[in-house]
């Protein structure tokens, strides 16, 4: 039994507006979704929070639906739901790849997209996908609803731009007229936290060839937060020289040594992943194939 824990208090959100009210009136309360992150840290004794608000019953936050020209994925959508969603498969298949690589089925049945975002680990596997997709996070509180670009969401290691009383409601994914690519490098295929994750899109649309944003590259586990490799994107968009782009990449990432890997390993693999992806999708190889 958990001797390390003192008394915990659990509140149940009956409705979304009820949840907003509780968030407002109980400072310091932590919302909980699938608890696959929260419970691990509770067990380790590293989580000091004593009051929790269970969102799991709010089925309106679990919907995956097309809304005009974007796909809306509710924060409580589980990985299992995402993997089996036809809309996700059509719109953003790289999110299915990322979701399939998370934990085993037991974790995929409980873990949620909102939880991955809320937890904000630099190794969170869906985060590079959301960064490359230029997703928008929809937040809500008693004050109303606001949207924030995913690429502005994290402000530091496990820090984000949310107000304490806000909840993540959904994520909006704009249309990506591009080839999507996702690659996770971990110790083993399943059940492994990643050493490096890369998600990238490259548009083949002739109308977008002048758009510098046609190439978008994001990495997990290379910095205190998920990052977009903006300078590398620009370098590739300008001349497509992969050797130059690899150098640029190494100058814009700051990997660290930790229990899962070393900085040198991460630098090397990041540069290799970039080259692997570019080899597959670069205009030259597109013409060849």
């Amino acid at each position, binding site marked *: 039994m958990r001797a390390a824990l003192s*008394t*915990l208090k659990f509140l149940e959100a009956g409705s979304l507006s009820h949840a907003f009210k509780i968030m407002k009136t109980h400072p310091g309360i932590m919302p909980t979704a699938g608890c696959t992150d929260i*419970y691990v840290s509770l067990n380790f004794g590293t989580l000091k929070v004593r009051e929790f608000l269970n969102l799991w019953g709010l089925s309106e936050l679990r919907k995956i639906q097309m809304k005009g020209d974007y796909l809306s994925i509710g924060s409580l959508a589980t990985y299992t739901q995402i993997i089996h969603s036809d809309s996700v498969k059509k719109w953003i298949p790289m999110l299915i790849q990322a979701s399939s690589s998370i*934990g085993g089925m037991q974790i995929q049945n409980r873990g949620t997209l909102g939880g991955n975002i809320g937890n904000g680990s630099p190794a969170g596997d869906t985060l590079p996908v959301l960064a490359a997709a230029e997703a928008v996070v929809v937040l809500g509180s008693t004050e109303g609803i606001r949207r924030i670009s995913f690429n502005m969401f994290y402000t530091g290691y496990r820090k984000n731009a949310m107000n304490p009383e806000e909840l993540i409601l959904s994520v909006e994914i704009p249309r990506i007229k591009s080839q999507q690519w996702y690659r996770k490098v971990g110790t083993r295929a*399943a059940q492994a936290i990643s050493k490096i994750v890369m998600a990238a899109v490259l548009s083949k649309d002739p109308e977008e060839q002048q758009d510098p944003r046609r190439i978008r590259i994001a990495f997990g586990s290379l910095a205190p937060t998920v990052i977009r490799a903006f300078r590398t994107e620009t370098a590739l968009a300008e001349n497509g020289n992969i050797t130059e782009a690899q150098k640029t990449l190494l100058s814009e990432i700051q990997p660290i040594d930790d229990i899962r890997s070393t900085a040198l390993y991460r630098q090397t693999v990041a540069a290799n992943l970039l080259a692997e992806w570019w080899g597959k999708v670069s205009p030259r190889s597109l013409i060849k194939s």
Partner: protein
Amino acid sequence: MELTVTLEINEKKHVLTLDSRTTLLDLLREELHLTGTKKGCDHGQCGTCTILLDGKRVNSCLILAASADQKSITTIEGLSSSNSLHPLQKAFISHDALQCGYCTPGQILSAAGFLNEPWERTTEGIKEGMSGNLCRCGAYPNILTAVQEVLENQKLLNPQKASHS
């Protein structure tokens, strides 16, 4: 803090007063003495504590009993409703899909969840679908054979259902 939850465990209703921090795993083992569900890591990593919650497989060490109020739970003790073993239990025995047996209840419950999910019925599909359950003794090849056999028999019994998935 004490609270009361109502759970249907192996088709039997339980109204329980418990400490709010109790996980489903500890509730099953320590309070209800359903010790078939094992604790390997208590961190969601090993899958030995797998149960079915409303028919879906989950790690019971990562779920608070308080958050499972009104839900139905199946453990290894309740997998077969009559006196005969569940086909997965039989297959695990006949294929010797275990050595020490510690991971086995979790493996079997996980496989039971797998049978209801839209996985590809291939060797790769089974391996991927069962990847949340670790076996320290390395009985994986026989576990795979046991699950394959149950899938094969399912196909024979219900060819339409099997071809759908």
